[in-house]
């Protein structure tokens, strides 16, 4: 278990480097991928998502919609945990582990645009002063804020854990699960 912990810490360092160095590029991809989701809500549909450094800016196409800046890097750093968890597996560079890592990474990255959309909704629901009160009811405000806080506090890491649990080899799974299921 000590070796696993050591591999986890090394993976964490690699994950931080990856997240830090690829953050701006991924934010651009994120803005592109989340753009179609904006059409789901007519209140904010008239806007363009533009990546600016570590943030994504919601640029309104109509004067009535306020602008918003979303710290997108705060929605994507769960990739660090994903890298760390797969690095902690036995034989981290084996074909099996790398394939599982690719699948898990795809799941996590595909959920990032949804996380960004939820964060945008939460920002427009609560942080735009009178505009928020005019366009969102009390229940809608509560829903979006809780959805964002849940994603940020537990959901983004829960997704990583689930993706790792589902895709990694049997070696990481508790022996009872392996024995009983066989």
């Amino acid at each position: 278990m000590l070796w696993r912990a050591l591999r986890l810490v090394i993976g964490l360092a690699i994950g931080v480097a990856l997240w830090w160095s690829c953050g701006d590029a991924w934010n651009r991809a994120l803005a592109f991928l989340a753009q179609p989701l904006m059409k789901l809500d007519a209140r904010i549909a008239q806007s363009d998502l533009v990546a600016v450094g570590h943030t994504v800016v919601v640029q309104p196409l109509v004067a009535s919609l306020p602008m918003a800046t979303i710290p997108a890097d705060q929605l994507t750093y769960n990739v660090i945990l994903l890298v760390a968890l797969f690095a902690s597996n036995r034989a981290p560079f084996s074909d099996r582990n790398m394939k599982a890592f690719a699948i898990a990474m795809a799941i996590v990255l595909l959920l990032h645009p949804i996380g960004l959309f939820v964060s945008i909704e939460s920002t427009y629901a609560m942080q735009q002063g009178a505009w928020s009160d005019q366009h969102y009811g009390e229940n809608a405000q509560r829903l979006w804020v809780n959805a964002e806080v849940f994603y940020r506090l537990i959901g983004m890491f829960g997704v990583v854990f689930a993706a790792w649990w589902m895709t990694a080899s049997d070696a990481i799974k508790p022996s009872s699960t392996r024995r009983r299921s066989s």
Partner: protein
Amino acid sequence: MALSRRQVGFLIRFAVLCVVFYLPIAVPALERVTVAPFTRALTAASGATLRMIGQQVTTEGTVIRGGMFAVDIKNGCNAVEAVAFLVAAILAFEAPIVFRIIGAIAGSILLELLNLIRIVTLYLLGKYHRDLFDMFHLAVWQTLMFGAAVLIFLIWTRNAVARA
């Protein structure tokens, strides 16, 4: 990647319990009587630890203040979310209930002790290396907390299964 019914069941129970344990954070009336007093106690403990290592700090509510620098401990910094994550995983796992309860309590204590170290190091980083504070506050320590939660969970599953 084929999952057994047992594994799927674990993931569903884990997801449901994560939502259930999120309620004390989300519902203000519950938050006031559970998470808020805990965070104030954690702030006092962190302040005491900082004073033990020679820092001139005072605490007030959830704020630790020392000279030109102060930190405010909020949800996300009190490790309640990492504890909720760990307890959800342990309770969702099929093991004797006594092992689950012992694992959940012991794991939560370990995580909160680690969180005390997090708060102390973040305070020191903020005071002496402000340039590193944001990265460690946002990414490094938060990930470490959840990484530690997963490690504790794996250690617990091994021991729980061996004893069972």
